[in-house]
């Protein structure tokens, strides 16, 4: 358990990389070893905010996270440069568990960032095969398409500017109808994940989804991120199995804001 760093560790940014329009990766060295794909960090932008970010690059030398500029904190992060400093604590959460040999990975939007190190881990074992769907609104938002070798990569865009026209869950359903998978793993907009989990559950395909909730403590204490019967997204998740999600009525329907009040998804 004490692989975690729980007081923000100040790290120097080693490098940054624009992955697509408004999507950037920040790289740095981090002392914690053995980060599991799907785990996340709390990123402190000193003086501003602290927000959760999945680890999108895992290597012995350095790690990175990839994010979309959506609000004040991510905007500030976006403007940071090499040698700037941020505070990092973690890794937190459970991460994905790979099951079987033939795996379908479905990422939507920045969910792709969360899934990237998982795909690399799947590929690290020779006999596994992986089909990957990356779903975005439009072509410009695509990233990580050239990061992996030997994957069967399919793309969906809402506007059809490239690949399948429609949402990733529709494409996923088509593929699931045609092929047998040992496991489906997804991260992206909750509505999309909800569809995929429902499809898999009804077909009894093991499925895992990585959820987002408003995170404060990140260590399973404050209760801010709880879903269902007290499942803490930051500690018991963010990755949940399909059968667990089937018992969480709010999955796909509502989340809680920073005050704990329910809001529609």
């Amino acid at each position, binding site marked *: 358990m004490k692989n975690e760093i729980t007081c923000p560790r100040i790290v120097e940014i080693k490098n940054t990389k624009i992955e697509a329009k408004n999507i950037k990766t920040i790289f740095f060295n981090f002392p914690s070893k053995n980060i599991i794909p799907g785990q996340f960090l709390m990123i402190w932008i*000193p003086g501003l905010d602290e927000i959760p970010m999945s680890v999108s690059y895992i290597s012995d030398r350095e790690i990175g996270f990839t994010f979309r500029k959506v609000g004040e904190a991510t905007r500030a992060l976006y403007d940071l440069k090499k040698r700037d400093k941020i505070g990092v604590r973690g890794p937190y959460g459970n991460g994905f568990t790979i099951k079987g040999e033939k795996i379908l990975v479905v990422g939507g939007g920045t969910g792709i960032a969360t899934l990237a190190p998982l795909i690399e881990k799947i590929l690290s074992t020779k006999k596994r095969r992986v089909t990957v769907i990356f779903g975005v609104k439009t072509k410009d938002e695509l990233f990580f398409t050239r990061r992996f070798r030997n994957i069967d990569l399919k793309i969906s865009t809402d506007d059809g500017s490239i690949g399948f026209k429609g949402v990733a869950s529709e494409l996923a359903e088509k593929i699931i109808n045609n092929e047998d998978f040992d496991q489906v793993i997804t991260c992206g907009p909750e509505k999309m994940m909800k569809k995929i989990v429902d499809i898999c559950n009804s077909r009894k395909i093991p499925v895992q989804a990585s959820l987002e909730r408003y995170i404060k403590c990140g*260590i399973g204490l404050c209760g801010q991120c*709880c879903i269902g*019967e*007290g499942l803490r997204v930051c500690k018991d998740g963010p990755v949940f199995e399909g059968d667990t999600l089937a018992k969480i009525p709010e999955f796909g329907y509502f989340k809680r804001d920073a005050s704990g009040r329910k809001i529609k998804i």
Partner: protein
Amino acid sequence: MKNDEIDTSTRLSTLVLKNPFMLASGIMDEDAGSMIRIAKNGAAAIITKSIGTKQREGYANPTIVEVDCGIINSMGLPNPGIEAYGEEIKLVKKKTSIPIIGSIFGRDEKEFCLLAKKMETYGADAVELNLSCPHAKGYGLEIGSNPEKVGNIVASVKSSISIPLLVKLSPNVTDIVEIAKTAEKNGADIITAVNSVKAMKIDIETGLPVLSNKIGGYSGRAIKPIGVRCVYEISKEVDIPVVGVGGILTAEDAIEYFMAGASAVQIGSAVYYRGVEVFKKLNNELKEWMKRHGYRKLLDIIGLAQKNRRG
């Protein structure tokens, strides 16, 4: 003696607790689901997140930081507001059978009374006044360090509800006993001590306080000797039951509080240190300890250090 011959039940005014381990306010108790999970994990009672009249987001992150011997938090009393909280209480009450104690914070008597009445209407088994949050302007400690205000608020809340009234005090005062006695005199049924201790963590790499609110409340192992001291001092001077909180990680920690005079204890940060299973673990450890030491009833331990006191 077997474990099941050992009686760790306890009472707080009219509340009967199957064991002495309650969930402290602010820990996994903002929504019904979390509280149900904690109840299933063996907690004897639950104090809800402190609820105010209006929805509050709390402070910006970072709201929490772990330090060497504990945790410093400055959540800023986030809560969905008393109106929205009704459905949470009702749901917990439907799904559990342990006492649910509504924690509330307000600016003045009027707010506290309104909140307390709502909690009673929702079905809460008792109300706990948070007069001790160390980091929210205009609330908590700012009120709870003033005996006169404490007296007025306790008296008016007491007269507006018929369920037991707990008053949670802060160690960040010159004389916690004076405040406890004022609360007792004005009708408090139970004293809870202590809330977290005002503290701060500065990140020396950036030269910045880590918490966005700069100052927060210190909880966990480090504060146990402070909490035990407060419970000891208070128990000596009041006749109502005292509930101990602060840095309880093991049954031994809890026993220190019982011996100091606590009739029950609340568990906060240990949910992080030992997981949500901490309630079951503590009760088992307590029974083991009692068995080894030849105690049959928790009541035989409570206040032992008071009895053993000379002079």
